[in-house]
């Protein structure tokens, strides 16, 4: 030691160097630091022995516990599913009516259905299932394919105009674009259709125009929408007399429908959701409708 310099504050020696005014103390490494270094290292060694850890060329050490994250999660999911069997078995096997009559099961349906609906269906049908432009409400009485739990469950399974092999298929033809009707005829039938559910429209339109619209309707539309325009659940053709619209009831929108046709697409959930989940969703929707307006 050439020169000893002691720091007056801490009392430690400096290392003797100086860089542009900076000096360093030669304070020994505190015990705690050394201890913690060893502690974390030992913890790591134990962890390495127990868990998959070190690569060995074409394989790796598997660890004494034989744990693998994929098996772990598979087991957790299996255990969780078997924990749920106390109710899931009932929902799986009982009839819709029996489940609906059981308040305990229906509480589970509401709990489970809400999240399932939120994660899978709400994007189209809205968080409250009231639909949106192009996507039907599911809480009205106006069902395209029938509102029974069975019908709904089937719609969910196969979808509408989806790639599923059993898909429900429906098509509103493009009367204008495909040249089946003339422009005036379409204007008239649009007015007529709108008048069916909207008294204000019925009053505003000249009776002659309505009559001609009605004629066009009878010739072209009743095949699907029915004699009274109340729809046909065999074909998925909507009721045009109620106040529920898939594509909004505005003049422009109805015109677009008749001119260009429609083919709504509801995905199939056959391979995405389990039969149990689909059944819960059907029950959830029926319940929602009963509770709703």
């Amino acid at each position, binding site marked *: *030691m*050439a*020169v*000893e310099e002691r*720091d007056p*504050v*801490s009392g430690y*020696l*400096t*290392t*003797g*160097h*100086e*860089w*542009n*005014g*900076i*000096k*360093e*103390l*030669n*304070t*020994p*490494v*505190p015990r705690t*630091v050394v201890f*913690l*270094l060893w502690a*974390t*290292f030992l*913890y*790591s060694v134990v*962890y*390495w022995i127990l*868990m*998959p*850890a*070190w*690569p060995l060329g074409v394989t*790796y*050490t598997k*660890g004494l516990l034989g*744990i*693998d*994250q994929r098996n772990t999660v598979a087991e957790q999911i299996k255990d*969780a599913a078997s*924990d*749920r069997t106390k*109710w899931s078995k009932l929902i799986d096997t009982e009839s819709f009516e029996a489940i609906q009559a059981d308040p305990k099961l229906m509480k*589970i349906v509401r*709990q*489970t259905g*809400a*999240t*399932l*609906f*939120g*994660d899978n269906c*709400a994007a189209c049908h809205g*968080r409250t299932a009231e639909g949106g432009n192009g996507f039907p409400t599911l809480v009205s009485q106006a069902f395209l394919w029938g509102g029974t739990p069975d019908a709904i469950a089937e719609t969910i399974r196969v979808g509408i105009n989806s790639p599923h092999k059993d898909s429900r298929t429906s098509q509103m033809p493009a009367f204008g674009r495909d040249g089946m009707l003339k422009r005036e005829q379409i204007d008239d039938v649009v007015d007529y259709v709108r008048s069916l559910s909207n008294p204000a429209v019925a009053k505003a339109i000249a009776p002659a125009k309505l009559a001609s619209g009605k004629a066009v309707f009878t010739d072209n539309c009743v095949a699907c929408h029915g004699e009274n325009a109340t729809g046909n659940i065999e074909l998925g053709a909507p009721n045009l007399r109620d106040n529920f619209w898939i594509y909004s009831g505005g003049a422009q929108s109805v015109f677009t429908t008749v001119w260009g046709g429609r083919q709504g697409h509801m995905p199939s959930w056959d391979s995405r959701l389990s039969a149990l989940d689909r059944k819960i969703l059907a029950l959830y929707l029926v319940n929602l409708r009963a509770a709703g307006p």
Partner: protein
Amino acid sequence: MIAQLTKSERQLALIILLAFTICGLAMAIAGRQDPLGVHGAIVMLAGIAGIFGVIYVYYEPEPDEGRLALYYDDPTKVAIILAMIWAVIGMFIGDWVAWQLVFPNLTFDAGWSSFGRIRPAHTSAVIFGFGGNGLIGTSLYVLQRTSRARLPDQISPWFVLLGYNLFCLLAATGYFMGVTQSKEYAEPEWYADLLLEIVWIVYFVIYMRTLARRKEPHIYVANWYYMAFILVVAILHTVNNLAMPVSFGHAKSYSAFSGVQDAMTQWWYGHNAVAFFLTSGFLGMMYYYLPVRAGRPIYSYRMSIISFWGITFMYMWVGSHHLHYTALPQWVQTLGMTFSLMLLIPSWGSAGNALLTLNGAWHKVRDDATLRFMMVAAVFYGLTTFEGSFMAIRSVNSLSHYTDWTVGHVHAGALGWVAMITFGSIYASVPWLWKRERMYSPALVEWHFWLAVAGLFTYVFAMWNSGIIQGLMWRTYNSSGTLSYSFIETVIAMKPYYVARAVGGFFFFAGAVIGLYNIVMTIRTAGQPADERAADRPVAQPTGVPALQPGE
């Protein structure tokens, strides 16, 4: 400043600038149907502007030999101003990003302004623009002082600084046009990556040459860290950016790696960009400015050694903690987690070393906002590394990953550590560099400090809250054993925290604006060299004491 160059340096500058112009032209032509063309034009214009700048002073008299007896600080001065400008830009964009999550239509129906494009513009502007310029500027300053040697030449530092800023400009403008490799913190495309590669090699050469000329027998700890920063970033950058361009006329390239190997390479890079850019480099900064400002010796040389090698060795193992529970094989996750835990000790070693250095200077911390910036930085460095090691535990990460908790951790580090240490160091060095007695307005430094602290706490607490709430909501089960919340419900729950974060971010941004103003005003007000540091010179001070041996 260009007049400081000698004749031959001016000629060399012209040649380099001409080379840039020609490269730019070639890119502009080859990429005329592609965003690459725009970048070619930018490179070309930058080259032409440089040429004009040099020609303008070309016939001015050469500088005298006296300059060689002084440190070469012109690049540092420019770097510091650029750092502050990038800080203001980057934080402005950051706050805009934050407000977009409150008002998603703040894109004005345009592509360039949408969240996914301005977010990387924010991260690159603050990390590379602000942080990088701060590192380059201070490293050149510290390197010369602690080696008592002038930089080896006057061209290469300019090449590094300006070339680097051209890289930053290409990066930022690229995102707005949609040019990105999508690898976080390595988003710029292949040609910008190549530019950075060259710049970085020159940067390293400057470092080695200056150290080789040093008049101190020992390399100071700040330089270990700066060197680790330069070297390791070079390795990381080279490997992670290996890619196949679609053609020389396309900005687009395809990463050499795919899938799981690409993920591991990316996060080996991504984590160590944090470690060696945002940590190692700034530790270098801290190891110089903090002891100088506090007027205290470094608490423990030995702790510096332990921390340095611990950090350099262990950090490179931990990238896989970004991939817990993913398709990355579990053995790699194990290594990432365990090394992250061990890493805490050397990290705290550095933070502790800094805070204990302040022993005997706490009264200065109380009175001096500049030193307080550095003190808060050291505290947040300790806090962030603790949090990081905690989040690296698999079960904790299962909650935190993918959530705002990560963003909170990032900004505890970015605002609390990176930005705070940089602001402190800049406030310390501006009066020294421009030979002023002090900053234009110490009151404004106080303002900046308190705005920064307020912004920091608001931001970080908001994100801790939102992150943990979101993570918990995702995994909450109801009494039936099924998921309680749908995803969109968690989005709704984030709203108040996003507002708070955006407000906090605004405070932090406002502080940076004040800082820039204060610095500009300091430069514009003439002053007398009051601090003896303003006059320090490469020649060894006649202390009369020869190089000493450490007390081993």
